[in-house]
């Protein structure tokens, strides 16, 4: 007896693209299972939804810039999913966060106008949809900024942040406020857990208030709680009597973990299963269809029968794509054909680390319906798609959300599942 589990759709990967596809499919009534080797990139990301920040100049309005991008770059994931799919996916995401496990926490913004938020080093970063707890950081507003460093958090240097904000034309200065810590350094997550406690917030607000000047807004590293950030943030705003905003820090990213929690809750609320630790190691095929995926279970492999597979496995960073010493790019989960790899004699890498890196545009070869080349029932979403350089474009979450959402819509259309939930 070799038992097997059966699903309408198996989603591989628990990042933004995978969890979005899974939640959306489950909401349509599909029996869904997410298989993930581990936690996805959410915990490392800023928690904002960046759709298009640079093209290559800074983008003011993604709504205006996207049609041009799509026309000029038919190989780009946005050309694949279409501009309309992006707005639909963002709307869906904002709704799921509002219904999610963090009471009252919501995202603000839209595709018409990017918000310009300071990073941990005070650089301006354009983002379309941002947590309410970050929105007051928009650097297009003139209101002066007081950046607050927290003593045990060594990953946020308030003076560096303030100095760079000032260079962008907004008056800024830094203060340091010690927290009562039982160790010499703590990461953002540890501090965020302490900020869940109203007594900690009260003591902190009391300590900070005397440092603040008339008319200043307060910049804090993103530590205002994981489970109930809305309460922490609104309480600080009301106690301090001014706008307060979070700045995302180095990993572990507290706002990123909130995104994971919200999307996971959406999958679970719709009845989807999530299996962590289950690395997919192979597939059974029947002609141009994948019939089952084999994944690591302790002691053996378990087969997950699937009518549909959504691959949201990520790119080079997650290990889903590898570059061998033979200069061959391989897709490691199913051994699928890749596209976007620079040809012989073409440059693969550029000298500037954050500049153009042609090889990074490699991804799984797909058709216009996100189907992996040669496979009828395998759709690809997120960073596994070819054609983008998300860190240059400021487009990572936009691509993941839109392509994950659309992959689910495509499957739902094929299966005749309920259209909208």
């Amino acid at each position, binding site marked *: *007896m070799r*038992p*097997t*589990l*059966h699903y309408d759709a198996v989603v591989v990967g628990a990042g933004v693209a995978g969890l979005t596809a899974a939640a959306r499919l489950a909401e349509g009534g599909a029996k869904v*299972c997410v298989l*993930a*080797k*581990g*936690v*996805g*990139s959410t*915990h*490392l990301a800023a928690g904002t939804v960046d759709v298009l920040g640079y093209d290559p100049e800074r983008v003011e309005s993604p709504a205006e810039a996207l049609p041009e991008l799509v026309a000029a770059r038919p190989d780009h994931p946005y050309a694949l999913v279409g501009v309309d799919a992006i707005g639909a996916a963002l709307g869906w995401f904002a709704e799921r966060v509002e219904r999610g496990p963090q009471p009252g926490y919501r995202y603000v913004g839209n595709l018409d106008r990017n918000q310009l938020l300071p990073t941990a080093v005070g650089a301006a970063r354009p983002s379309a949809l941002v947590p309410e707890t970050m929105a007051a950081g928009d650097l297009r507003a003139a209101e002066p900024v007081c950046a607050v460093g927290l003593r045990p958090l060594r990953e946020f240097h308030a003076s560096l942040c303030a100095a760079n904000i000032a260079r962008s034309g907004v008056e800024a200065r830094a203060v340091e406020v010690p927290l009562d810590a*039982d*160790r010499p350094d703590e*990461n953002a*997550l*540890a501090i965020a*857990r302490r900020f869940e406690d109203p007594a900690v917030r009260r003591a902190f607000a009391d300590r900070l208030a005397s440092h603040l000047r008339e008319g200043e807004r307060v910049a804090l590293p993103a530590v205002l709680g994981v489970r109930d950030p809305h309460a922490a943030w609104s309480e600080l705003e009301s106690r301090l009597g001014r706008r307060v905003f979070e700045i995302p820090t180095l*990993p*572990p990213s507290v706002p990123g*973990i909130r995104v994971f*929690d919200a999307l996971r809750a959406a999958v*679970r609320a719709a009845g989807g*299963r*999530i*299996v*962590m*630790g*289950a*690395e997919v190691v192979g597939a059974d095929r029947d002609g141009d269809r994948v019939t089952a995926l084999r*994944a*690591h*279970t*302790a*002691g*053996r492999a*378990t087969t997950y029968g699937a009518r549909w597979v959504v691959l949201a496995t990520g790119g080079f*960073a*997650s*290990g889903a794509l590898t570059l061998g010493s033979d200069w061959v790019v391989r897709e490691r989960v199913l051994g699928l054909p890749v596209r976007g790899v620079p040809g012989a004699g073409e440059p693969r890498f550029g000298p500037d680390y954050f500049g153009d890196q042609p090889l990074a545009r490699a991804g799984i070869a797909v058709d216009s319906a996100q189907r992996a080349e040669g496979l009828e029932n395998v759709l690809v979403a997120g960073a596994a798609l070819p054609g983008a350089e998300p860190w240059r474009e400021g487009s990572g979450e936009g691509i993941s959300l839109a392509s994950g959402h659309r992959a689910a819509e495509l499957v739902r259309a094929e299966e005749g599942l309920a259209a909208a939930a």
Partner: protein
Amino acid sequence: MTEVLHELLRGSLDHCVKCTICETACPVSNVTPLFPGPKYVGPQAERYRVDDEPAVEWSVDYCSGCGICTQVCPQGVKIAEINALARHKVKQQRGVPLRDRLIARPTVLGRLGTPVARLANASLRSRPLRAGIERAIGVHRHAPVPKLAGRTFRSWARRHQSPPRVRRVVYFHGCGTEYYEPDIGEKTVAVLEHNGFQVEIPKQGCCGLPLQSNGLFDDARKYVLRLARALAPRARDGALIVGNATSCTLMLKREAREILGLADDPDLKLVSERTYDVCELLLELHDRGELKTEMRPVEETVAYHAPCQQQGHWIGKPALDLLALVPGLEVQELDARCCGIAGTYGLKRDKYEIAMAVGADLFRQIRDSRAGLVACDSETCRWQIEHATRLPSAHPIELLHRAYGL
């Protein structure tokens, strides 16, 4: 230690990109500065561990061995396994205290205690005696110790005749069932038989997990191989092995082979491939349309906690899907990570407070859920939960047993 396997574990640390995802999930480092976190003592400190030189980094002793770090790592680094080996080395160097040698042997304690269960149970609930035990050997006076049943599961199993069926399973009951919760064993057998299995219950002993987690690797190897020898002949005949003690089945499936370096033992390999957590097996049965779903309503609100070791099977939470079949039963999934006990960790005088702090999040979620009962797949976790919340706790199989009206 198989060199190849050691290299596989140790080699996996090269995949660490220092992303800190394990640190976000580590239940211990999030509550105490004594443990600096899985990344720090694992992939980072491992580079300073030289085979024939003494250990220089001792904080790994505060790792509870829950294994969550390995489970969440997106790069496949065997963090918990690397740390288990490091902890073993520290223990070898410092010596393993008498306490750890005792609490790591549930079969010995069970065998000695069962004939005098009433006295033993009363003694372990006597405050002055517990204070004395704490002073003498370092078992924390408040740590949750289970009640001996006063009878063994084996004594029931010897008399029990499982009706002959085509499909046979071997039941691996573990020490918790044997000495403390024989009724859960009886219910597990009943649920399996109800679903068309003939249940064989060979004579069996401890899987060696508590020995392993206390750094007593040589003894752990002896125990687990003895168990594998007892189970392998049935597995060779085609039977599946199924257990309700989720950490013990994980030991058979994966941990003994990876951590104790027994990857090449043919009996253990066979047993490992054919061992199932009971909920895992029943869910697969259900998926094939072969699980009986005629159930009577169980009007109750239950909070479900998936223990760390259950999550280490990489099977998701099959208990939730099974409990969803029970009419009337309202199940609330808890997402707090760990109850803190980690087998024997929370029993120790120097670890008890840490274990309770680890579990605080879970205990708060349980209280907030307003559930009257907590379902959980691991016995030591259930005892910890009962100790901390004063709420009763049950294995998911007990709820199925009730729903079937057996």
